[in-house]
């Protein structure tokens, strides 16, 4: 049948034309298209991987920052704690020292007061003694101005002696 018998002429032209078409398209069309596609895909994948890298870097930096922040916070807490402790210690120390000082001062004051009191008492005693002598002198002078009185006195003294 005519339909399934290949025509020589058409086969000839088809072969030549197709080969020419194939060669021309391969060289001037498919090559730049495939190269262009590959280049664009490479650019895109590079850009994506770079973005991923940047994201990871960012993540790392954020993590670092967080770590630094945490460390700083811990450091601050530590410093605060130490300061608090030191302050407390200082305060306790000062308190104790003050107490001792105060106690010592009180003691000193007491001692001073005591010694002053003693002094005063001694002086008062001496004063009293001298006053007594004076009083006695005055009294004696007055008493002994009369004879009777003198006798009385002597007899008293003698009596006292006897008792002893």
């Amino acid at each position, binding site marked *: 049948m*005519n*339909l*399934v*018998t*290949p*025509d*020589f*002429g*058409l*086969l*000839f*032209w*088809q*072969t030549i*034309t*197709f080969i*020419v*078409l*194939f060669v*021309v*398209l*391969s060289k*001037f*069309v*498919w*090559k*730049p*298209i*495939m*190269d*262009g*596609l590959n*280049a*664009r895909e490479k*650019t895109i994948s590079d850009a994506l991987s770079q973005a991923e890298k940047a994201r990871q870097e960012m993540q790392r930096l954020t993590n670092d920052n967080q770590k630094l922040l945490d460390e700083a916070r811990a450091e601050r807490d530590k410093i605060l704690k130490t300061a608090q402790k030191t302050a407390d210690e200082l305060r306790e120390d000062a308190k104790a020292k003050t107490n001792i000082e105060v106690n010592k001062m009180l003691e000193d004051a007491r001692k001073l007061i005591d010694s002053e009191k003693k002094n005063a008492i001694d002086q008062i005693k001496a004063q009293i003694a001298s006053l007594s002598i004076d009083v006695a002198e005055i009294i004696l002078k007055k008493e002994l101005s009369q004879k009777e009185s003198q006798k009385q006195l002597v007899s008293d003294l003698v009596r006292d002696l006897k008792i002893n």
Partner: protein
Amino acid sequence: MLFVLNTNVVLAQHEGHDHKEGEHKTEHHAEGEHHKEAFDPGKMIMHHIADAHEWHFATIGEGKNATHISLPLPVILYTDKGLDIFFSTEVYKHENEGHYKKADGTSVHTFNVKRPSGVEYVLQDEKFNIKGGGFILDFSITKNVASLFVSVILLLYVFFNVAKGYKTNAGKAPKGMQAFFEPIVEFIRDDIAKKNIGEKHYAKFMPYLLTIFFFIWFNNLLGLLPGGANLTGNIAVTLMLATCTFVITTISGNKYYWGHIFAPPVPPLLWIILIPIEIVGLFVKPFSLMIRLFANITAGHIMILSLLSLIFYFQAWQVGIVSVLFAVAMNCLELFVAILQAYVFTLLSSMYFGSAVEEHHHEEHHHEAHH
């Protein structure tokens, strides 16, 4: 949407063409039995899907006064007397027409061309012969060859335009035709070539796969145009394309491929059966490629032409309505078949290339299991 609309216009024109021709023939039938026979759908369809030495679009009028709207094409004949080149207008003349009845009663329609050199050619069923016998080769630029040239010019124009886009829009998003064809090129690369041939070898087959895909697709579509030639539905064309795939597969075949054919991984006793089967398989593959494309495209043309023939066969406008609706549907289907057959041809070619360059031995066993 635009595409579908376009098809309708195309179909309308196509129909118009057939209509004129049909009328021309049926009128003869109505007028009486001169020397013309009744409208013969088979003859009309065969005339449309076969090649011709002129590009005929329409005939207005009848008989001697008929005006043929056709594109004259060069006839190039190489005979034992040398090269003879003339235009098809020298052939299709009314006075050249000859009719005679064969012994079995079938009538034969011929054109007898007398050349100034004294040589006389007889054109019967679009085949030239020298009257009185002699060696002849027909290199004519027939309707199919002319259509082939048109398609090649179109392909070159379109794809040079696309390729230019990669220079002007380098590194940027594709534009225009480039944007339209890029996904298709990527589909062929990723879903056909890479999948069936593999990452390692696919690149060297890409130019061929792209060329056949777009060649077949463009020519399928051109064939659907009114007056378009049935190029991809011609056995010579599909034979050449299938041969290309066969030659490339054979050249690319590595030791595993040939080993698979001449030393299949089965007990040697079975080789007696398997090796001939494998050898036959080598040729069956491209043969099926050739027949598949030819049959699908030709069948589509025959379907549409048959539907339209019904109108002239029954000569009833009611049939016309139904036929046109069916023909529109068929034409839409043919638009799909145009790309489908291009895809199938490319896909199968890439599978054959894939089997030729396949390297892993265990995969070959796997492949074997599928048989």
